[in-house]
């Protein structure tokens, strides 16, 4: 998408009347939270450059590692900074991108004006370029000072190096590595409708909206709405939300959220012992993630399905590569085809997809403990305490011990130690429900010749196998409330604060009332006042199913 076409293309928006309606009257009071300063993620950085300058501008370099906090990288983004090594990379990426943008192939299309002489500064042309691009990069118009400083660099550099375009690129480099671009810093203002309270200003509001729904910088139309003040009204906001939620870019936004919530970044470091799992390759990793994201977005956005059904659905998508692990024929030779598992198939829901099964296993064997812990932490937002430091894992890790042929038997022997039994009782039973799938996620009926018993219990609900574990998860009240919690924290860049407890409860209730439909929940959040309410900085967080609760039940 090019500079000039950016807003035009995304504005295909067919305005849809919100299912949820305005409904602000029944919104409970919320304290709001502090402003946050978020570093762009790698994906956001790349998407923004592609949105503004076109996808053929190559960005080469290493990004700083992200930080996971409160279950989300989006929250960690509010805590990270830039190291010297990281800045070197930003500098190199910025110079690389800027050089391409002004090169002969791109300049006419992307700069929008021509200098009087290519060998000398041209302030008018530079000014027009920096104001247009700067507004999209900084997510607000440049201040007079900023523009002046940009022009000073461009002019001086063009003079020194005898080239207008090189000078222009130098100034652009500075913008793309500036804190105004790399960090989404929010700005609060007095809320004229609620005396004594603060809210995000219109540009910060536009930024939150855009990153939450589309995972990229606000487009021209949204910025215009911010500039005109439209975005300060409920009506103006609703209009933009309708447009943005009708856009295909909503899928990119939803994918970014689930990618974060499911901790798929951990795939970058995932490895398997290929002697045991020769079917495991990097291509499998990519397909497995994509399969889950496709299943999710197809179910939640295209089919407007119930979030909880993700854990029971037998519908998914296959590639030829995945077919070799699921052991189903796949006709398409490239790309994806829809697939539905038979009603008696052991596979149902996200828990039985390769992404979940393989990500939460050790390289050489499946681990009911790791899977159970992931289920609690990722899908139920519960914190499981780390194991004590002095545990002896030999028994669990020795998969060749003829005395303990299955994981259940090994864990049974291991968890007799008093220090271990409490935690294991919390996490193993649900992990054991997935034991019919090995570390790669391939089906097996037996381990070391002993049949696998996949029965267990999740919070008092008994299940017999992976499919009924999925059903138990579907029915667990913590499942949808965890999603609400994560989605809100993702959008706000911080976990909900104490003063927002009522508001979160309200979101829980309305999520249920609307049939657990994700788009309705997203709309509810972005059309509320609460989402944009700002308080003085505070860090206390609301605890949902906290570690303390778990510890109690473990004792």
């Amino acid at each position, binding site marked *: 998408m090019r500079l000039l076409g950016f807003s035009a293309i995304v504005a295909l928006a067919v305005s849809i009347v919100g299912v949820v309606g305005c409904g602000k009257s029944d919104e409970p009071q919320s304290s709001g939270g502090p402003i946050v300063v978020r570093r762009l993620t790698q994906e956001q950085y790349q998407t923004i450059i592609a949105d503004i300058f076109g996808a053929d501008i190559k960005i080469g370099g290493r990004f700083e590692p992200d930080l996971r906090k409160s279950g989300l990288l989006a929250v960690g983004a509010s805590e990270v900074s830039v190291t010297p090594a990281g800045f070197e990379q930003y500098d190199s990426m910025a110079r690389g991108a800027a050089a391409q943008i002004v090169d002969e192939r791109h300049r006419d299309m992307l700069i929008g004006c021509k200098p009087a002489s290519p060998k000398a500064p041209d302030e008018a042309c530079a000014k027009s370029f920096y104001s247009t691009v700067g507004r999209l990069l900084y997510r607000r118009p440049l201040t007079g000072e900023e523009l002046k400083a940009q022009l000073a660099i461009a002019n001086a550099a063009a003079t020194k190096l005898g080239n207008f375009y090189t000078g222009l690129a130098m100034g652009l480099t500075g913008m793309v590595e500036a804190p105004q671009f790399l960090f989404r810093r929010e700005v609060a203002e007095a809320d004229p409708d609620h005396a004594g309270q603060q809210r995000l200003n219109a540009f910060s509001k536009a930024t939150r909206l855009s990153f939450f729904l589309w995972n990229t910088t606000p487009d021209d139309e949204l910025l215009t709405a911010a500039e005109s003040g439209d975005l300060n009204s409920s009506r103006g906001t609703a209009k933009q939300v309708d447009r943005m939620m009708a856009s295909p870019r909503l899928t990119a936004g939803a994918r970014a959220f689930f990618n974060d919530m499911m901790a798929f970044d951990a795939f970058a470091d995932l490895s398997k012992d290929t*002697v045991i799992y020769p079917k495991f390759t990097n291509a499998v990793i990519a397909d497995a993630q994509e399969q889950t994201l496709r299943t999710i977005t197809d179910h939640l956005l295209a089919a407007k399905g119930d979030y909880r059904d993700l854990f029971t659905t037998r519908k998914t998508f296959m590639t030829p590569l995945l*077919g*070799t692990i699921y052991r189903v*024929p796949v*006709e398409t030779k490239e790309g994806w085809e829809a697939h539905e598992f038979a009603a008696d198939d052991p596979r149902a829901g996200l828990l039985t997809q390769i992404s979940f099964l393989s990500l939460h296993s050790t390289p050489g064997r499946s681990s009911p403990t790791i899977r159970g812990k992931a289920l609690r932490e990722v899908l139920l937002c519960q914190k499981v305490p780390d194991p004590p430091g002095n545990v002896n894992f030999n028994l669990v890790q020795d998969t*060749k011990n003829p005395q303990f042929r299955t994981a259940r038997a090994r864990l049974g022997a291991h968890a007799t130690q008093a220090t271990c039994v409490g935690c294991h009782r919390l996490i193993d039973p649900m992990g054991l429900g997935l034991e019919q799938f090995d570390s790669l996620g391939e089906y*097996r*009926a037996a381990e070391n010749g002993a049949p696998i018993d996949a029965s267990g219990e999740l919070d008092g609900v008994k299940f017999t196998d992976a499919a009924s574990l999925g059903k138990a998860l579907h029915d667990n009240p913590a499942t949808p409330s965890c999603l609400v919690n994560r989605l809100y924290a993702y959008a706000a860049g911080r976990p909900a604060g104490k003063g927002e407890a009522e508001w979160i409860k309200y979101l829980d209730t309305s999520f249920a009332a609307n049939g657990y439909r994700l788009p309705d929940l997203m709309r509810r959040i972005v059309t509320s006042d609460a989402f944009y309410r700002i308080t003085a900085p505070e860090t206390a967080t609301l605890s949902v199913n906290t570690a303390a609760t778990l510890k109690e039940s473990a004792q």
Partner: protein
Amino acid sequence: MIRSSMRPQEARRQIWEGIVERFKSVFCSAAAMAALLAFGTHAYAGETRGFAVTWFQPAMYTGEDDCPDGLNKSPDFKAVFAAEGKTPEQIKELIEHPNSKEFAEAVINRGPHGENVCADPASAPDPGQKTVQGKIAFGFNLDGKTDNSSTPAPNSCAHAKFSSPDGAPNVDNQHYRALGCMIAIRGKRGHDGFVLSYIMERMKAEGLRTYLVEVKGIDNPKDNANVEVGIYLGSDPLVLDAKGEVRRDTTQRISKDTRWHNVVHGTMKDGVITTDVFDLNLLGDPIWVPEFHFKKARMRLELQPNGDLKGTIGGYQDVMTMYYNTVKSGILFETTNAATCPGVYYALKHAADGYPDAETGECTQISTAFAIEAIPAFVLHQLGEAKAKTAQAGAAGHQD
């Protein structure tokens, strides 16, 4: 075809003949087999298993007594050059540049009148290639001869028989006899001669050629009176796994080119499938053998506990085609295969044992046996079939 105007007796006779024909066809040829299927009778109820072939090369028994005089060697280059009248200086220069064009030409064009001895091997005298002296080889009794007389079987040329490794007598494998003392192709399975493993490595790495096997009619895991075995050219390249082996449980389509479809009736006894006689036609590997044509072919296939399939295919191949395929790289053959072109030519010629030429009486074909190995795959004949197939591709996952 029964015409409606026929009288009843005539019609009954034709029906009976039809049944006899069908009976014969089941046990005779693949083409007739296909006709039978077209007729509408399907004798193969039961499970169908699909496989992708991972190894298809000459079966080399490689016994210790095979080559008592050692293995064959490359030409003695220095002797060749000296015989060609090269000076010591010229010889030194050639030796220092073993990759040069001059070196190659001096080696290959060594016929009595400067002939290229790979292109025209008959121009050179027989250097006496060492051939297999052992008693054991893989294969089948192709000519049907079971006595020890010196008279060859009809349509054959006199030759000695082998026993199979499991003791079956009267095995014909003159291909092995002629070339089995060449290091480039000799070697027990898993320690294969470099030419064979090189071809298979490239087939795998490049996805050059896919062969598919389908076994229909597995009612019982061990014994089935009637099974149907199909060997097909596949249309999708093989895909590898992380170990560099062919990936298991892939979906594979059969080529639409029916020239490379081979379907034959067989029986399965104690897990071992034995087929009727048929003609096997397969597009070859693009490196050495452009096409495979096995006449009077037959197969013995064994289902493995892990779901794999292993076995032997025997039949006759054209002897001159085999010669030219073997030495087609010319100088590279003579400098890396430890053999000579004329040696291979005369050894094959002398060993040929099938299809005598009507005029000269010299056999034009040679008995051979290939080892075949295959792993589970979903084999599709046509689009839309995948949905109907269940997860039937062999063994269930990792058991440990």
